[in-house]
């Protein structure tokens, strides 16, 4: 592996990419060495995904050249990239809802016998891969019924099924809990031993520092710093964050003030057929209650049930002590409950519509007098663009053209704009860079201090632990326990989440 590390597997020279309304890549040059794990970090909108999309043959660079093991290449389409051994896990899961997990994994490469798809072999192969990523569902399941995290696992299984020599992972762990993340890291280890080269994009810096041999830092479409094997171990999270954002960062969990009194939200005996069983809890005003659990713990279903987005088989929801009959998201919003869903692409945003339109989607009435006053809309939106550091040329930009993390910020802005009494956030900081995370945490904190109640569903355990007054742990649709922040430790939570008896 040593000598192979000498000649770069992949060489990028002066690559530039400009989109209508944005410059994604400005003269990027870097080299990727075989058999190593390269971390790629940078603020939201720095150009990471775009760079990788160019390598995967999805976008074409405007100028510059890509050299793959000595030969210059210009991929016209994903097929070319795959042919030359490059596979990519996309930031946004891109699966076919109407096909099964197995069919998705091998889409385009189905094993056939006499021209017919050989289902048996298809499923066997898929099952093997699913085991490797330690997924809790079978290959015959329709993807439509999977949760976001589960879809992510399918994406990973799919990516490794190519056994490519260069494997690109764009924020694979954003929605995974530490449990699956662990499995993924082991997998990456095995791949690395097989000499597979890996580019690993993530906003979870501890992961990056732990996992990567080299770290490439991007800003505003440029590569600003490259840390090599020797420098990486010597770098701290703080320093790396500094390199990314270009300014020093404080410890990013603001101190929590005592929760207020009075029940903002009370849930009794909530059940959803097949997903959630008899969950009961209360959220006090000015309190953040975190929900931890493994994938498929049923947290999203629970939230959706509260919002009236899923049929409840039992349970009552009470706001400010009064029972409310919530049959649809409208009822919930009318009752002052907001829900930031975990699937920004599927259920969160209108990608084809402008940032402003998305932000004011819930509060549009406020901008009508009687016609929509677009100037006001834009101003309000600009407020969020600045506050949350959303990288968008303006309020009228189509959300679909924003980078993943920036889309997530727009989604958050949309629900803050509603200013709810109770805010349920499902994976709120998914794909958001630490700089902005800081802002978001501070913001949530401030709102809570002003009396809002918040349910924080997150697969990022330290986020849950860092912010919540209390931590509820769910397992297989049941609420196992609610711990106070004081005695909620990582191990404890993980034990309950995994259902192992506490030592």
């Amino acid at each position, binding site marked *: 592996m040593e000598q192979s590390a000498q000649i770069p597997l992949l060489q990028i020279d002066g690559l530039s990419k*400009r989109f*209508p*309304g*944005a*410059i994604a890549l400005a003269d990027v040059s870097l080299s990727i060495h075989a058999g190593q794990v390269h971390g790629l970090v940078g603020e939201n909108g720095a150009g990471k995904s775009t760079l990788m999309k160019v390598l995967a043959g999805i976008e074409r660079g405007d100028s510059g050249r890509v050299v793959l093991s000595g030969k210059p290449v210009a991929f016209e389409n994903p097929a070319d990239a795959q042919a030359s051994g490059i596979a990519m896990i996309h930031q946004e899961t891109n699966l076919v809802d109407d096909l099964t997990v197995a069919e998705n994994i091998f889409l385009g490469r189905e094993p056939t016998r006499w021209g017919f798809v050989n289902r048996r072999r298809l499923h066997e192969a898929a099952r093997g891969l699913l085991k490797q990523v330690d997924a809790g569902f079978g290959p015959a399941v329709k993807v439509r019924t999977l949760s976001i995290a589960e879809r992510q696992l399918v994406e990973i299984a799919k990516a490794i099924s190519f056994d490519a020599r260069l494997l690109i992972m764009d924020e694979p762990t954003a929605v995974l809990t530490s449990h699956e993340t662990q499995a993924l890291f082991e997998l990456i280890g095995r791949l690395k031993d097989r000499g597979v080269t890996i580019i690993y994009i993530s906003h979870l810096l501890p992961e990056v520092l732990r996992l990567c041999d080299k770290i490439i830092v991007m800003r*505003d479409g440029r590569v600003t710093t490259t840390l090599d094997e020797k420098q990486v171990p010597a770098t701290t999270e703080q320093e790396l964050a500094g390199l990314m954002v270009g300014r020093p960062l404080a410890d990013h969990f603001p101190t929590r003030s005592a929760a207020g009194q009075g029940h903002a939200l009370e849930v009794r005996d909530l059940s959803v057929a097949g997903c959630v069983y008899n969950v009961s809890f209360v959220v006090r005003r000015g309190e953040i209650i975190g929900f931890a659990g493994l994938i498929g713990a049923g947290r999203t279903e629970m939230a959706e049930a509260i919002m009236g*987005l899923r049929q409840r088989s039992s349970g009552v929801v009470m706001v400010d002590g009064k029972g409310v009959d919530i049959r*649809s*998201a*409208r009822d*919930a*919003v*009318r009752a002052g409950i907001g*829900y930031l*869903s975990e699937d920004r692409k*599927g*259920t*969160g*945003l*209108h*990608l*084809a*519509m402008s940032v402003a*339109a998305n932000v004011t*989607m*819930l509060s*549009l*009435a406020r901008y*009508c007098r*009687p*016609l*929509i006053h*677009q100037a006001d809309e834009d101003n309000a939106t600009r407020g969020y663009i600045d506050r949350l550091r959303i990288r968008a*040329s*303006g309020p009228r930009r189509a959300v679909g053209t924003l980078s993943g993390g920036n889309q997530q910020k727009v989604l958050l802005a*949309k629900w803050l704009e509603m200013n709810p009494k109770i805010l349920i956030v499902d994976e709120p900081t998914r794909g958001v860079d630490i700089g902005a995370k800081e802002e978001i945490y501070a913001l949530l904190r401030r709102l809570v201090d002003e009396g809002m109640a918040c349910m924080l569903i997150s697969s990022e355990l330290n986020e849950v632990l860092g912010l919540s007054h209390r931590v509820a742990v769910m397992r297989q649709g049941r609420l196992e326990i609610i711990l106070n922040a004081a005695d909620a430790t990582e191990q404890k939570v993980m034990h309950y989440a995994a259902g192992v008896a506490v030592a």
Partner: protein
Amino acid sequence: MNVPIENSRRWDWPAVVERLGPMLALIVLVAVTAVLERLLKHESHFLKAENIFNILRQYSFVGIVAVGMTFVIISGGIDLSVGSLLACAGGIGIWMMNTAILATKLINDNALARKEYAENVAAGLNLPLELPWSAFRESLAHWSITLHLGTSEPAGVVLAVLAALVVATFAGWLNGLLITRGRVAPFIVTLGGLAAFRSIAMAIADGGEFRSASHDLFGSFGAGGISIPGQYVAEGVPLQFPNPTIVFLVIALAAAVLLRSTRYGRYVCAIGSNERAAVYSAINVNRIKSLTYTLMGFLAGIAGIMVASRTTAVTSSATGNLYELDAIAAVVIGGTRMQGGSGGIAGTVIGVLILGVIGSMLNFLDVSTYLQGLVKGVIIVVAVLLQRLGQKR
């Protein structure tokens, strides 16, 4: 950092082409037609104000329908029933008007028939009782007299308009109901409507025509217009800007505002671009959707009564045939996405004009009867093709 982006925004070619595409197509088409007429027929009547106004009048009706269709398609749906509905509404409008205007005659006729029948019975021969007008219609006539509604011609006309609008709006609402509450694909629901509404019209008219009992007043609007001072098409006949076109343009204007700067319009786009997200955003998807189909119905009603006024008659079997296809074509030619989510009224208006020009072109260039379909089809596809190729992928 923002500065270059703001700059590069100005050079957003695809968007530019997308916006201007239909306009360009229209201009090219007009130019080509005018030139060809000159070359082939050594004449130039095509560009005469008279002809332009003719085209405008002829396609205002499709235009009004197309405006409604724009909302439907943006919301992610489709409505195939508009042509039939238009005929049904217009027909029923005339039917009501006639019932009112002819009330007395109609009652007398039936009275006579009964008298005759009674005499026959008395005379011992039992021919069946054949009423010249159905009993239901007779009772309506009685009503319209007792309620003093429109036995006079003007009132009758008002009645016609009301009837047409009520019928059409209700039908549209019904479509909406089946699509939202019934969760049946819009294509199927409105395909059913396509068959059903015309069938109702034919059943009422016995397959024949609805003829206005009030030619002059009722007909005056659809055929009339605002005279352009000093311009004449023939001695004593002033050049007129057509009333239907005025209605069309007013509706289009209102619709544009509705679509771009009201909550309703915004929600229509939201539903069309991502329905699930709309549900999660607490939008009352069902209400917006049924509103959209109801609006479509209402506009079909307006078009219907105006067509009726234009021709002072509605042919239950033929009037409005294939309007749905013309309307949809206009919308898509105008740059609205067939899958919904984005689109605009301005484009639709241009799309309508393009269809109008094609229609008149076929005539002015004496395209042979059998080849007209070919030419029309090709031009429509090419018109859209040019727009697409204009944008790079």
